[in-house]
């Protein structure tokens, strides 16, 4: 019995995208709490391990490598800036570059000059923290299909979600028609024609006009097809009901705006801050709820929130909670001192906390193959 439950638990399937987002955001929040390079590198190792173990074999998952490169660039920039704009804070001067004198109006900015180990280290820690957070976001994109996340939007936002999905699929098509038209232009002699500016305008026009005509044609056809297939069937909503939901949503959103402004600006009366914010949120949510109930639309194979989703989300949130808790207990090791140069130390509680984040690599079901059954696997069974 228990064994059967375990087998079901580990059947390959794609987790709810929100679970992966909760996990990565937890790790990103944890990274924002510390500059300890050992902890940050552990977080990176955890993220990379889980991504390698659980990313699907799909095009969007391949983008994770780009985020790793972006992280490396961020660190290099942070450290490089300390060389260029001077980093002389601290006693241990590593090199003295010739300083470039700047005019008086640029007082406060220094170009080159002495560079201290402390400031370089500061740049490295800082850059590493930012890079870790960016890579965490990349991991979310690799693990969860971004389009499925749009599909999981509440019913009231369904139409907006569809519009975004359609817009996203337009870009590859546009690129394709630009290529095709540019190629076709060569057939008409391409480079010949007028000279200078006039020629450039002609060239631009020869490419843009057919591409735009093509795009317009496509969108009209798409609109006709969506209409014919029932997009935007309103069902039976009375004008009165529409008015109520509309005004609920707008009032709510205005309340939220006022609340946020008051919270950030200390000089406004306090009763405008938290109370208005909360009330606005509640009213807006009620509006969404009503609008959603009006929608008579169903969802094909929606992502469900089951036990593995809970485990994944909890492990991410757990990491964040542990780092928040330890920062009040043991702040020095989370943010190593930059005034006295020393090896950053690592204590057990935060390290174990970060290691919680690796659980999804073992406790979540593997992803499904994006293109159905893998032919090679089927053949193996047959043989």
């Amino acid at each position: 019995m228990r064994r059967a439950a375990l087998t079901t638990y580990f059947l390959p399937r794609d987790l709810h995208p929100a679970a992966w987002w909760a996990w990565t955001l937890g790790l990103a929040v944890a990274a924002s709490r510390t500059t300890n390079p050992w902890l940050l590198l552990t977080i990176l190792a955890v993220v990379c391990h889980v991504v390698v173990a659980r990313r699907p074999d799909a095009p969007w998952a391949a983008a994770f490598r780009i985020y790793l490169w972006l992280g490396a660039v961020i660190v290099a920039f942070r450290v490089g800036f300390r060389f260029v704009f001077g980093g002389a804070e601290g006693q241990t001067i590593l090199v003295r570059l010739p300083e470039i004198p700047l005019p008086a109006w640029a007082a406060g900015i220094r170009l080159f000059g002495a560079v201290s180990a402390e400031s370089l280290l500061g740049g490295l820690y800082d850059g590493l923290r930012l890079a870790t957070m960016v890579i965490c976001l990349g991991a979310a994109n690799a693990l969860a299909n971004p389009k499925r996340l749009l599909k999981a939007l509440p019913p009231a936002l369904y139409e907006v979600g569809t519009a975004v999905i359609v817009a996203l699929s337009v870009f590859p098509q546009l690129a394709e028609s630009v290529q095709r038209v540019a190629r076709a232009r060569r057939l008409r002699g391409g480079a010949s024609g007028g000279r200078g500016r006039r020629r450039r305008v002609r060239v631009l026009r020869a490419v843009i006009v057919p591409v735009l005509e093509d795009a317009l044609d496509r969108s009209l056809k798409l609109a006709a097809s969506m209409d014919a297939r029932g997009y935007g069937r309103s069902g039976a909503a009375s004008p009165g009901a529409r008015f109520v939901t509309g005004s609920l949503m707008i009032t709510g959103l205005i309340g939220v705006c006022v609340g946020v402004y008051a919270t950030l600006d200390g000089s406004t009366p306090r009763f405008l801050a938290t109370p208005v914010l909360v009330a606005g949120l509640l009213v807006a949510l009620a509006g969404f709820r009503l609008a959603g109930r009006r929608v008579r639309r169903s969802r094909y194979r929606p992502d469900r929130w089951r036990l593995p989703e809970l485990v994944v989300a909890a492990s991410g949130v757990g990491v964040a909670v542990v780092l928040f808790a330890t920062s009040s207990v043991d702040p020095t090791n989370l943010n190593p001192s930059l005034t006295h140069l020393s090896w950053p130390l690592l204590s057990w509680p935060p390290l174990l906390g970060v290691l919680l984040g690796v659980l999804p690599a073992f406790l979540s079901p593997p992803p499904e193959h994006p293109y159905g059954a893998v032919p090679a696997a089927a053949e193996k069974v047959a043989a």
Partner: protein
Amino acid sequence: MIEFDRVTFRYHDRPDPVLADVSLTVGEGELVLVAGRTGAGKSTLLGAVNGLVPHFTGGHLGGTVAVAGVATHTRPPREFAHLAGVVGQDPLAGFVTDTVEEELAYGMEQLGLAPQVMRRRVEETLDLLGIADLRRRALRTLSGGQQQRAAIGSVLTTHPRVLVLDEPTSALDPTAAEDVLATLARLVHDLGATVLLAEHRMERVVPFADRMLYLPGDGSVVDGTPAEVLRGTPVAPPIVELGRLAGWEPLPLSVRDARRRAGPLRAALGPPPARPDAPAAAPVLRAEGIVVRYGPTVAVRGVDLDLHGGRTLAMMGRNGSGKSSLLWALQGSGPRQGGAVRVDGRDPGDLGAGAARALVGLVPQSAADLLYLETVAAECAAADHESAAAPGTCRTLLDRLAPGIDGDRHPRDLSEGQRLSLVLAVQLTAAPPVVLLDEPTRGLDYTAKAALAGIVGTLAGEGRAVVIATHDVEFVATVADRVVVLAEGEIVSDGRAADVLGGSPAFAPQVAKVLGEPWLTVADVRAALPEAVR
């Protein structure tokens, strides 16, 4: 199931109605073929069924159109999603989601069906259309035939009472078209679906159509069984024309019917037509060892080809067999990794774009990409300027190819055939000795194809070498002297049209299937008939 009651439709800016006082009823389980020239109102008739005409297109519709008792003027098209499933010409343009499975579910999601029902219907439809192995594939990566089947599946899942298809195979190669039409035949025979279908390739649908609506273009509709209607139409599939020529009654609609009656005709025929042999003259274009590759995929694998002046060569082969890549490589604008092309002692690939098009002119598959100005006259003037020809050269050419096109019209408002003529005139302005046409028959009706065949004959008559890449067997049979078949980037057969086409089960035109190898077209048969029978 579908009722048209005294329907008249006109666009606001045109005086003549597209449909005039049309009344007809389509019963349950009927397959109705809608035929007629481009612009005769086929799409209008089909669009009126679910209200896209006039709700989406504008214009004025008089009378009533009703599906399953619901009149289209009472509700917008989206409220007909569960009654009429509409499939267009270009499946890719109508897809909303990006995988097959989600696309099948989309219509049902809009109707708010229960999840278990949706799940069951998606599985059933995947099996019905034979696309179960494609369920998770991205729609963009499918072949044309697979895309069209997915599009049909996506409207079938809502269990519509009628299925409306507007030229579903006009953008497909013959194998893919065969796939789609076989699927439709199965839906009609096994499920008794009510289908309204517009189709250029009548010959493929006529055998299983119950009824035919022919739109002559004056707003009226000729309604009857295919055999009755086809007796009087000006355009007909070759098999019907052969039947008319031989005086068969009733007219045969399938190769099988015709073949069983062909004995006496075959005996009455004189010797088969003599076709010109390969010329002794030196080739105009000589290509050796052409290689085209895109990364790891090889599109053209070391092809040698000679083109002779005054001859027409047809290039055939399935989609992706390297036809287009070879044409672009010969012209010099496309990529070419190996081999040499010689025209007039020069290689167009080494020359600038302007000099290359004076040697080899190419009309690409989407010919409209070459046009970017607002009027036909402006396009012609630009063409004269581009090829440094005397002003008026392009316009003269255009008038020879397609007389009577108003210079003030926008190129986009021209019919498919007229636009093709305009692009061809633009390319001919540079006076190239070699003319390459990539899929010129796409979207052309029988009349436009006959006009194109005339144009190709003229070009060859002027001593140019013409190459046509196409899937259209009947067109090849009328125009080509020589046929080359490509597969996987290699030439697999090359010879006289009668030899290559006649002997192949895939490429044989209908007349050859009925009468045997040397007979390719109805014109051949007519020429060989003794006076008395004629």
